[in-house]
């Protein structure tokens, strides 16, 4: 009987951990659950930095549309670049994105987070409005989340709009500046991203 209980307990644990990052399909609840989960993990003193980074990576890979974000930030070059270059870019972009996301979330994880409302813009997009509470180093910050809802069973984050300023757009214009000053050479952009990832 004890063995059976142990087996059952183990199965429940495995099941729970496999679904640890399954959030609601409702965009508003999705953002609320995801961010509060991330904040609680990042402020958990029992987890070391590596464990926190692994958690963030897992959550981001499952819930952020990194592939679309990578193509968006590449701008028009995505239409003309060679497939091999594009694949290489997408791989390094994912690493770059995960590193910068972990860094950004760590910067803001000590603050209280609250979802305010959600506004359905189209069948593809819902904007979830939220705020990060005031702290010593910053006033209250309003954050809008652009949620891609084409697949209603699996909402995905595409952009964070901080006080009206789109992070995806900023990244796109940053990449465009690098490409413009290097004859639109995607390899230069890839090497810059690799440099960021390894530093």
């Amino acid at each position, binding site marked *: 009987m004890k063995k059976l209980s142990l087996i059952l307990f183990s199965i429940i644990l495995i099941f729970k951990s496999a679904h640890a990052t399954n959030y609601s399909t409702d965009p508003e609840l999705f953002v609320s659950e995801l961010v509060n989960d991330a904040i609680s993990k990042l402020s958990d003193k029992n987890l070391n930095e590596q464990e926190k980074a692994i958690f963030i990576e897992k959550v981001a890979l499952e819930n952020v549309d990194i592939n*679309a974000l990578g*193509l*968006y930030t590449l701008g028009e070059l995505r239409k003309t670049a060679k497939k091999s270059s594009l694949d290489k870019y997408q791989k390094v972009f994912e690493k*770059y994105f995960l590193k*910068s996301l972990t*860094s*950004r979330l760590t*910067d*803001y994880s000590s603050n209280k987070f609250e979802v305010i409302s959600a506004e359905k*813009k189209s069948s*593809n*997009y819902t*904007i979830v409005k939220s705020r990060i509470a005031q*702290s*010593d*180093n*910053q*006033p209250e*910050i*309003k954050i*809008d989340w*652009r949620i891609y809802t*084409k697949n209603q069973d699996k909402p995905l984050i*595409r*952009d964070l*709009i*901080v*006080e*009206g*300023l*789109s992070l995806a*757009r*900023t*990244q796109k*214009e*940053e990449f*465009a*500046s*690098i490409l413009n000053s290097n004859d639109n050479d995607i390899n230069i952009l890839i090497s*810059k*991203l690799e*440099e*960021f990832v390894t530093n």
Partner: protein
Amino acid sequence: MGFKKLQLIICSVLLALTVGAQAETNTDKECFEKISRGVFQFNQGFDKAILKPVAKAYNKLPDPVRKGTSNFTSNIATLLSIPNHLLQGEVRLAGHATGSFLVNTTIGVLGLGNPAALMGLENQKEDLGQTLGSYGVKGGCYFVLPILGPTTVRDTVGMIVDTSYLDPFARITWHEKEIKNISGTKIDYVGVKAADVVDFRGNNMTNFDSLEKNSIDLYAATKSLYLQNRKNKINNSSESEDDWGNLDN
């Protein structure tokens, strides 16, 4: 030739350049990127050596002191917002701004408190760059000024005209003109502007650090943020433009 005449000529030339730029689809064209990048580096050095340490010390001050400073500088900035609201035809907002200034200057003890906000009076910052933008004048090319930071031709013209003619606080202090027995000096002007900058830098400590750490081209990221912010202010909106459309098709 008088200084005023020179200012008028500079403004006319800059504005002509901006109007010419209206035909451009890109409003974020660079005037002289290499020089701007150099100036940006200089500004970064200034920030690291002076502004950031001062802002860090400022953040250690008691909350009421910081809040009071923020309210005080915002209240003075209202003086510039009022004529710009009127120039934009926003009579309601001009009324709110005037009411806010009067209430905060009197009941709020020279603007240190903000009782006007509790009374529901809006105090939205406006300048001539925004006013010109609201009439459809594009930004023209983008460049960076020493200490003052990112700007465009339109916003620089706006800043010169604001400081020279529209801003009563600048008229009293920087230009040392007496208005209704109120007078001031250039030191007053610089002091208030410096307090405003330190307050802004202190409030955005985490944002600046995070941006610097996560950018592969900080100059381009700053330019993008500046231009997005100005566009939002001109449109009186906090929503980002949706340009994802062609990725979904």
